[in-house]
């Protein structure tokens, strides 16, 4: 049953998924900050998201699949003696940002459902 939840609600659900995966990737980067030869990983989703958002129908989100990849940016610059390129400070700040973003998405989604609920419950007459 399609209860009339629209494209942005689906988008918010997908963004929550992305955020959740991102958190695990950051956790793995931090856990491996002292592992020799370990290269930092990240979630790649921005291009797919851009494409999916510009499609008018919400079914296009089904093909939206973020990927976990080894980060390409400054992969060669910041390598330490043991071959590890995880920057602890960057990872921790990504962590904080991701937590905030996740809570923003949950609140937006909650608001959306609240509006739909009020339409259903509002007909008291």
């Amino acid at each position, binding site marked *: 049953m399609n209860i009339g939840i*629209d*494209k*942005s609600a689906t*988008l*918010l659900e997908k*963004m929550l998924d992305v955020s959740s995966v991102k958190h695990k990737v950051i956790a793995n980067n931090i856990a491996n900050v002292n592992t020799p030869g370990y290269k930092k990983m990240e979630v790649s989703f*921005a291009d797919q*998201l*851009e494409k999916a*958002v510009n499609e008018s129908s919400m079914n296009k989100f089904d093909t939206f699949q973020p990927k976990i990849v080894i980060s390409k940016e400054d992969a060669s610059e910041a390598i330490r003696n043991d071959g590890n390129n995880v920057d602890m400070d960057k990872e921790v700040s990504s962590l904080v940002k991701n937590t905030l973003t996740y809570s*923003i998405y949950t*609140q*937006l989604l909650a*608001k*959306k459902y*609240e*509006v739909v609920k*009020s*339409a259903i419950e*509002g*007909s*008291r*007459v």
Partner: protein
Amino acid sequence: MGVSPINNNGNIPANNEFVNSVEGEDQKSSFKNTLGGFINEINDLQTKADASIENFATGKVENVHEVMIAMAKAEVSFKFMMEARNKLVETYKEVMRMQM
């Protein structure tokens, strides 16, 4: 203390839109058009809120509060419309009762 007479010619602030709509459908500010205008505005706010969510997700908007304010506007206007609708139906029922 003067009690103003009932048929005071003065200022009963009649809602012109309602008064006019009684007189004829083709008045520019008829009740139907007003209500339709409200609904369009509210729909517009919803669309704007959705667009701001998309912009935030794709990173085009930096400020969270823009998104939050757009959502709040959409929600409040929607609930306002629901209340207005409820009041209208109530009034209609009241009027129907009166005619008995």
